[in-house]
């Protein structure tokens, strides 16, 4: 059995009080509870404060380019589907720069877990507004207030085919850990959107702000009802943030539908192709 210590890399460089600390702990505890080890785990990190977890979380990891973690994760899964695959990304990373990859990964139902640090600002570049910033939010890049409406990432995922959609709050690491654990256990595309204060640059969406505006979904919530889930997701525009699993259905994952992959042997480990008598007649 692995321990939290096994997953612990270098000392993090996040700001004191940053939501990333709680997310880091929640991810590690979920991995330990699932009996995973750094050697059985692929992580694709994006670029940003979230992606900087690369040095603090031990795994076989790609710390790639801003916005491109999801295709990295998909490639890793297809090459070795025996491994668990996470993408640890930020809001600008996943919903801005990599938005196209995000919506196509949802509809592909790739068996990866996307963990989004949603703090509504670009922290690492010193506080410009992110795609999830509320309309009117003033930042260095939008001093007069952002004109666009914020992205509604949960509805986006729901309507594009994600089979597991959850939201959590960085201030409640126990619940967050449960969400991450369930997302990893889910077979198919899973999203955990994490509401996370940026203590340095976002003076609006603070811990106090979220304490006031979040609520947990109770047992009466029907996780299989898409329209109910979308209604809860749309609460973002009324500053009502649902926490919990909004939606979960069982569907065959992408790699399970690729006929040339079998359940026992990964693409990496299968035998080399040798039956050229099947191919050469094509050229005659």
């Amino acid at each position, binding site marked *: 059995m692995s321990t939290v210590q096994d997953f612990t890399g270098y000392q993090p460089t996040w700001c004191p009080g940053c939501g990333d600390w709680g997310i880091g702990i929640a991810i590690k505890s979920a991995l330990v509870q699932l009996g995973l080890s750094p050697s059985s785990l692929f992580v694709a990190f994006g670029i940003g404060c979230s992606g900087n977890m690369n040095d603090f979380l031990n795994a076989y990891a790609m710390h790639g380019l801003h916005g491109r973690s999801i295709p990295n994760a998909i490639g890793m899964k297809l090459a070795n589907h025996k491994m668990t695959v996470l993408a640890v990304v930020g809001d600008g990373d996943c919903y801005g720069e990599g938005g196209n*990859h995000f919506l196509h990964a949802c509809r592909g139902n790739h068996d990866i877990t996307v963990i989004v640090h949603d703090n509504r600002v670009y922290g690492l570049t010193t506080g410009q507004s992110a795609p999830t910033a509320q309309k009117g939010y003033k930042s260095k890049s939008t001093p007069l207030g952002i004109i666009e409406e914020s992205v509604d990432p949960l509805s986006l995922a729901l309507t594009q085919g994600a089979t597991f959609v959850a939201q959590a709050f960085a201030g409640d690491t126990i619940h967050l850990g449960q969400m991450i654990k369930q997302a990893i256990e889910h077979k198919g595309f899973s999203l955990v959107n994490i509401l996370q204060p940026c203590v340095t640059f976002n003076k609006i969406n603070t811990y106090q702000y979220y304490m006031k505006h979040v609520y947990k979904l109770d047992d009466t919530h029907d996780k299989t009802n898409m329209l109910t889930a979308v209604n809860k997701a749309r609460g973002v525009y009324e500053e009502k943030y649902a926490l919990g699993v909004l939606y979960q259905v069982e569907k065959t994952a992408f790699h399970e539908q690729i006929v040339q992959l079998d359940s026992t042997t990964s693409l990496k480990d299968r035998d080399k192709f040798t039956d050229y008598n099947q191919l050469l007649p094509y050229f005659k």
Partner: protein
Amino acid sequence: MKTFVWKIGGEAGFGIMTTGLAFSKIVSRLGYQMFDYIEYPSLIRGGHNAYEVVVSDDRVGSSPGSIDFLVCLNKQTFELHKDQLSDNAFIIYDKDEFIPETKSTLIHVPFKKILFSLKGQQIMKNTIALGASLALLGTDLKIFNELISQQFRRKGEDVIKFNEQFAEKGYAYIIEHYKENIQQVLLPLNSESQLVMTGNEAFSLGAVIADCRMYVAYPMTPSSSVLTTLAAWQKTSRMVVRHAEDEISVINTALGGSFAGVRSAVGTSGGGFALMVESVSYAGIAEIPLVIFISQRPGPATGMPTWTEQGDLLFTVFAGHGEFPKIVLAPGDMEEMVGLTTEAFNLADIYQIPVIIMSDMYLSESHSNIKESFVTDLIKNYQVNRGKTITQTNTTPYLRYSDSSDGISPRLIPGVAGSFYQANSYEHFEDGHTTESAEERIKQVDKRARKIRTYFNNDFKTPMIYGNFNEAEVVFVSWGSNKGVILDVQKKLRSRVKTAYIHFTHVYPLKKEAVIPLLNQDKRYVLIENNAEGQFGKLLQMGLGISFSETILRYDGRAVSQQEIINKVNLK
């Protein structure tokens, strides 16, 4: 050497391509060498398509520029190509459509009437025309009927018979009405078995032979047929073939696959490659092997999608921000395409870098034949060489980017228990963790750069020289797909002037001490490129300080022709 050109033209969307390929396969099975070339607009229907096949009893790699047998499925074909007709040309046409005004021998075949009498569709006009062509060229329908059976096998005997009768009608019409015009130019030759393939198919086959297990692409002319070919084979080859949402996803999926341990490749044209460039740089710093196939077409931007050019060489060579090594290879024909593709996968693994194969529309979409034994020997003899790729390690912590005298660090395939590491796009320590230390930075930059020295020592290939270099008065210098036309021209000039051809396949990086002695002799050098700026010449100028006073640069979307090279040589 006996060579002739057969060309068929008609409205786009009515089966010209299928018919042309059938002709290429028939002559190849009869033992002839062939090279074909297609012209088509970037449209699905309504434009003009033409398919030209050069047939010879010797090796051939380009069009001589004249047409001996022109099959006109419409009037436009005649109008567009009449100026290329050779002195003793034959024209197959239907007088119910139009009557050609020409000195060439007219061979009327009533396409329309035959179609009507047999209740055929427009597309079957091709079948009649090919049947008639084969009769006029002095062969039978045996191989054509085999190809028809192959094509319609799944649709049953009735469909096969139905199609065959169109070929028979065309054939019989010639025998009955034009017996005295029949040319005995396709008598079967005793040659060994040959395969007919395009450059894109040759890359696809090479990728399978090299044990590539993941191919990712977004369709872009003229590279798309790699995607469709590998996708068509996937159940047999068991390669995972992914058509991703855009080129950025394409290359990052492939990098994920390669990081996880499978040989991976992507394919595109210039515009798609432009989108991939940031990720090429990631492969450079994170030292992830990757094979990139680029089939060039004329740019900038959308340019001329269905035509040819070598305009992306410098862009490719310098692709990616920052400084990191990469290798660029440029095959000149089908043998080189299959061979260099298999080599590219080894080089990518050995040096843990991106290796790029440069093709262009002319090489990618033209068919040519290749001895079957060349392919079967390659399959038998090819060794997958993964260099310093390892499947276990005793080092703790495992140092993914450990410093080494050859610049290459042992690369552990992920999944091994007890280890972990990251492929980091940030500058990193030897263990892969991010660093901004000046000392560590210099160590890693130098380590990566050292790979090129190792490549020069172990794997760089000095260009092939065709002809007797010492005796040559004229020396052609070129790269990639121009090989075919230059070799053909050398044969034509043989009796008049001694020539040599320096053919570059390993175009970047260039090993100075191996190349300079070839280019600094007292010879008349002529640089030949399919672009406007002489990009390879610039590369030689920059890296080796060599310049050319004589150049042939073509950039109208067409390949360099035999005649323009001959004219250039004759100038002096």
